[in-house]
């Protein structure tokens, strides 16, 4: 199909301004991760890096479908750094997390994208997979009790969808009719385990049928189509029509973490998915439609480089935590979290 600015606007409901915003967030996600890898190689990042290369599209597209000014909250998984950036997390905040700095949002207690700020609309995950689905069911249930017109979105992987917490959470959220969108990212692998060893279902969204939720599967590397599907799910939730289980089909282009060379993934598969890179595809659509020029893409990338140079400097000069603080802030009342950092 051929794109024009008008056809994109008509088909997907995205203005030029929002399309450029998506482009910015896609490139920001990819570039920030590249910076994190380079800091890792310099020994400045302490823990693991879980790349979202090839999955930036679905993260950014799904989060863009939310309306953070209405109090919407997204709970990303490890490969959804893009969701956080769309919600308004700053690159320096993510860098401080990776670099375990004392003034990170978690003050050096937690890793990578495990950060929360409800005022901006995000809450990072805990590592036991599936847990965030019941939690987000409670967040959205409370939002409804409080008379807010908010929507929640929670991410889970093809592997995480095998957990008991996922099954309970999906059913519970559906029967409670809470305004929640559950996004399953089917990226082919859970660490080394292929999706065919997680489930014999061919479409993970069909799990919605068993509980009475709405379900949809979309090409997660098609940013525009993913946005449209996510937006439909968000609108349903906001209208009080309940839970949607949205499967985004994508591919994990790197190993589970930086140490993992993904030797268990057939080379042809990686080659095949390289051709479907979501950022390339999105940029081709925008260029073809004339929404954006090659110069504008270059200028967005230059802007991101400048922003990240500053963010990396800021993160590197951020203080380390004070060792004795390790004992504080477990319970309310010791003043730790009231202190400025």
């Amino acid at each position: 199909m051929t794109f024009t600015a008008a056809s994109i606007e008509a088909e997907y409901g995205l203005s030029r301004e929002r399309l450029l915003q998506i482009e910015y967030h896609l490139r920001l996600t990819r570039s920030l991760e590249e910076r994190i890898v380079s800091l890792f190689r310099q020994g400045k990042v302490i823990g693991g890096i879980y790349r979202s290369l090839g999955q930036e599209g679905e993260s950014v597209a799904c989060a863009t479908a939310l309306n953070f000014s209405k109090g919407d909250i997204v709970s990303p998984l490890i490969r959804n750094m893009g969701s956080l950036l769309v919600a308004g997390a700053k690159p320096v905040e993510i860098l401080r997390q990776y670099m375990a700095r004392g003034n990170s949002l978690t003050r050096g207690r937690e890793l990578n994208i495990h950060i929360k700020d409800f005022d901006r609309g995000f809450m990072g995950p805990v590592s036991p997979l599936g847990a965030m689905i019941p939690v987000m069911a409670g967040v959205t249930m409370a939002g409804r009790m409080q008379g807010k017109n908010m929507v929640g979105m929670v991410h889970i992987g093809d592997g995480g969808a095998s957990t008991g917490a996922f099954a309970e959470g999906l059913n519970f959220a559906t029967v409670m009719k809470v305004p929640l969108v559950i996004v399953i990212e089917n990226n082919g692998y859970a660490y080394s385990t292929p999706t065919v060893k997680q489930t014999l279902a061919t479409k993970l969204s069909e799990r919605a049928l068993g509980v009475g939720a709405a379900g949809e599967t979309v090409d997660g590397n098609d940013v525009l189509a993913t946005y449209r599907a996510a937006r439909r799910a968000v609108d349903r939730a906001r209208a009080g029509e309940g839970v949607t289980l949205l499967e985004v089909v994508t591919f994990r282009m790197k190993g589970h973490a930086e140490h993992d060379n993904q030797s268990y993934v057939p080379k042809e598969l990686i080659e095949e998915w390289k051709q479907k890179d979501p950022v390339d595809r999105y940029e081709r659509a925008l260029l073809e439609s004339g929404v954006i020029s090659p110069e504008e893409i270059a200028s967005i990338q230059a802007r991101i480089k400048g922003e990240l140079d500053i963010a990396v400097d800021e993160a590197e000069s951020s203080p380390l935590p004070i060792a004795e603080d390790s004992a504080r802030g477990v319970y309310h009342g010791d003043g730790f979290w009231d202190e400025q950092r």
Partner: protein
Amino acid sequence: MSDNLIPKAGGETFYIDAIRQAMREEMLVDPRVFLIGEDVGVFGGAFKTSSGLIEEFGPERVIDTPISEVAITGAACGAALMGMRPIAEMQFINFITVTFDMLSSFAATSRYRGNGGCPIVVRGPAGGGVRGGPFHSGNPEAYFFNIPGLKIVYPGTAYDAKGLLKAAIRDEDPVLYLEHKYLYRRIKEDLPADDYVVPIGKAKLRREGRDLTIITYGAMIYLAEEAAEELAKDGVSVEILDMRSILPFDEEAMLESVAKTNRAIVLYEAPLTGGVGAEFAARIAEKAFDWLDAPIKRVASLDTPVPYAPALEDFHRPSKAKLIAAAKELLRY
């Protein structure tokens, strides 16, 4: 619904009604408080602990759920982060193990990892002696005792049941509230008509004595009293300390009592090995060794699942005879 199901504050009150009064009164004064669990609404709870509440507060605040302990506690966590004050009921406290991860990984760590305080109350019927068998007689406090970030309380009287539940609901941190099902309709006392709380972390001296201290909590306070009465006939003066709160626990009260009596029995209803009483004993050994005239004794249940048949369960549990034997052994030193 006739309002005789909704207990009025104060007066002669059963342990179970003290729990309901606490929930009701907190729901009346604080719109953030709600109850969520299996059969808690229309049915009023498997033990009728919440009967009358849905009629008074509606299904938005007394929420019947699917059989999903993970989702119940997880949703409570999410709501708490949004500023609500959820009370999640486990139909039997044994089922709390289903949601161990939600409590240990999510709720307990939330504040420490910068995710914000998670002020939930998870309550449910604990304890044996009711011929409930392996899955309806549990005392799970030790499973959670090693999890910083949680609080655990286990009241043994109607007064404490009400006051500790109010304190738990008002607390800024996640609290596991264990209520002993054997006590539900077996004990009652006059409660004050006015609002009160029992502070979390404070023990209560139930009986003053000179010769030895029984440190205990939950329904075991009554077993301790029976033993103390019996020992009194032989001229032995027993002090009984009801810990009431298990995490944090009142170390000061414990050490103070041991410094006075110089002998300590730690009595608990859970299995012996790795029980909460093991930590109590370790703390006394560490901090009050100079005061001790005898080793610290533990009296607890056998290291087995809880059996069903009366003869088996009675043998499994702490008994007056076991307690008196332990006391006599200590008194020989």
